[in-house]
């Protein structure tokens, strides 16, 4: 089937989505995906970051589609014409999506473990505007522990449902879901039941933001100070194919390997992730491929010699001052929704 995206025509198999077709063309054409995650069935359609304009539905019926459609779940028709990066309306709406996603986001990147490998940061950087229009107080939630190794910081969650699908699909038995509605909805294990399941750690890797983080790695390093290395081991539970994150000689984190779209290639078990933290546990395969525009590829030389303490402290102080000085006088107390 032929489809034209941003004036580039490709041939794709029937059943292909606009997103997959665009990805075949390349990263510069592919719409941003904040919720869609190819390995997870039924994911996508939620964040609306991938909305694109279909200017011709198909060869048979070349009328444009009235609304923007989510690229991640819309299937190609023969002769479909799609506009992504060349359509004003699409780019305008995307700016709006960034704004919505940041509306209640704490913007605590300076102290967030995900910073540097955060889909929301990248999305904002590429599609957002630099000024905020909101003056409202942000919604807040208390951080909770999901078992001994996973921290949930709901303030940062964008409700992409990836972790919910992961828990549904790759761990046996449903371990968590979404409680409540709207902007007061939260990821929950239902009465904070611990997640104890051999594959639960994968919800950390699928999370596009810093809402789910690895407690064994928390605050150990900025991601751009660490070096990713592909390694493997003979694991009875999973494929044992992982990425080790080194700081100096120390393995500070173990994650699953990801493809160029940031999607996990093979889910790994909790033993590999949380317990095998010595080089001697692993056979090293070589440096991981890092996208060239990622901050992870920066600072790779002598990274272990840089002491971040001073600039970080300075930034935090300045940030606090700006935050403390924010004009809050126009904020009326809000009634709590439940």
């Amino acid at each position, binding site marked *: 089937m032929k489809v034209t995206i941003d004036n580039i025509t490709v041939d794709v198999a029937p059943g292909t989505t606009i997103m997959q077709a665009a990805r075949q063309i390349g990263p510069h054409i592919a719409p941003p995906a904040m919720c869609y995650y190819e390995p997870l069935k039924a994911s996508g*359609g*939620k*964040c*609306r*970051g991938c*909305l694109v304009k279909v200017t011709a539905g198909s060869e048979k019926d070349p009328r444009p589609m009235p*609304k*923007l459609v*989510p690229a991640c*779940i819309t299937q190609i028709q023969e002769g479909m014409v799609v506009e992504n990066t060349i359509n004003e309306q699409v780019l305008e*709406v995307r700016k*709006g*999506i960034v*704004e*919505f*996603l940041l*509306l*209640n986001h704490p913007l605590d990147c300076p102290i967030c473990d995900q910073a540097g490998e955060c889909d929301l940061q990248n999305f904002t950087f590429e599609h957002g505007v630099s000024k905020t*229009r*909101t*003056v*409202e*107080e942000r*919604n807040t939630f208390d951080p909770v522990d999901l078992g001994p190794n996973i921290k949930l910081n709901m303030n940062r969650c*964008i*409700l992409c*449902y990836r972790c919910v699908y992961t828990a549904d699909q790759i761990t046996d038995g449903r371990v968590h*879901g*979404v409680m*409540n*509605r*709207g*902007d*007061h*909805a939260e990821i929950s294990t239902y009465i904070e039941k611990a997640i104890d399941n051999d594959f639960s750690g994968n919800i950390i890797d699928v999370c596009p933001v810093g809402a789910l983080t690895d407690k064994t790695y928390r605050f150990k390093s900025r991601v751009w100070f660490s070096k990713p290395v592909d390694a493997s081991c003979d694991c009875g539970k999973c494929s044992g194919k992982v990425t080790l994150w080194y700081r100096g000689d120390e393995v500070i984190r173990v994650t699953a390997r990801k493809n160029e779209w940031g999607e996990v290639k093979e889910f790994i078990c909790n033993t590999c992730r949380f317990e095998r933290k010595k080089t001697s546990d692993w056979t090293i395969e070589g440096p991981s491929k890092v996208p060239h525009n990622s901050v992870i590829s920066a600072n790779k030389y002598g990274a272990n010699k840089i002491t971040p303490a001073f600039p970080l402290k300075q930034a935090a102080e300045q940030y606090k001052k700006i935050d403390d000085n924010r004009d809050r006088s*126009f*904020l*009326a107390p*809000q009634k709590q*929704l439940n």
Partner: protein
Amino acid sequence: MKILTEHIDVQGIETIDVFRKKGGYSAVEKALKTMTPDEVTEEVKKSGIRGRGGAGFPMGMKWSFLAKPEGVPRYLVCNADESEPGTFKDHYLMMKSPHTLIEGMIVSSYALGANTSYIYVRGELMYVVNILEKAIQEAYDKGLLGKNILGSGYDLDLFVQPGGGAYICGEETALLESLEGKRGNPRNKPPFPAVKGLWQCPTVVNNVESIAATSWIINNGGDEYAKIGIGRSTGTKLISASGHVRKPGVYEIPLGITVEDFIFADEWCGGIRDGHKLKAVVAGGSSVPILPAELILKTVNGENRLMTYESLSDGGFITGTMLGSGGFVVMDETTCIVHNTLTFGRFYHHESCGQCSPCREGTGWMDKVLYRIEHGKGRQEDIDLLVDVAKKIEGNTICPLGEAASWPVAAAIRHFRDEFEWHIKHPEKATQKGAVFMREGASWSL
């Protein structure tokens, strides 16, 4: 002309014996014994009846879209979740005359070839669930439900499901999720329920009032039904009238009467309460655009506005509105539009399911901004901000709740911008109890 409510005040109409004495279940006899399912569908098509749940989609056409693959069950699901602020007609009908709905369910299920059907009732209305269950039991006892109904060879089981307590479960795909026992999140479409609905099988979802009307259509013929009303607005419609009218309540009107008659005639609402004047109307439930007095009574071309799908939407969203679900909320000059908009905004904020970012974040944002304006902390730029946020939600969401949340805000600002500005300019006055802005020279100004 009364079709649904003719016998609604008859003593004991909720029992099957009284209901049958009044001619009840004759449509089941006629359809199952003398008509093929396709003939039933044909009559419904001829009647021109449009869905009464809000969107007004032609019912016969919806039925004809139902996929009919071999060996796959089909379902009819009745949407009785009725949670739209200002709408309370289905509740009234089911509570007073449950058999009217059950009769319609049997006829419609027969037409669609469904052997299992569901009535999904708003969770807060447990007493309605009980009334329906009692009536369904009576129908089973009389051989009107179950195996081989009236010896016709047609089987139907009918279940009542209490809802999960969320407005969003009235959206048809959220309803199906909820019916399957899951969280009531709307599904992305396509696929539509007609192809993949309940348990991934072809499903028709219709409103209570739509389904209830099919009995009369079968008894009297689709052509007869189409004679009532005007143009593409055929038949009768239940209107839930509330607010500052003399006689609020549920009225069955023939489509096509004038809005003026509906508000002022003694047969219907009986006019605005004593000593007050009509200021604005929300004509079709909280999600449709509000219109000021002059635009609800007459279109911009000076024609009388009628109670029809077409006339109410004359002028598009600039000067028109929608018939929607028929939740007719009348406001007099004591109503503060900013306060009213905040009430609606708060509702949608509370009811957004939170799946898609524009609706989840946008509804909360609009609520917070409206709250500030109402409480004397507004800024001039907030008005345009609200308009822009509404615009960024509209059309970009999974389900129409996004639009339902944006339209009331956008329309209130479109028609009553001066009230918002007044709130922002004079916070000390605006926040006094009962304070309402009076537009100079407006028909409602005192």
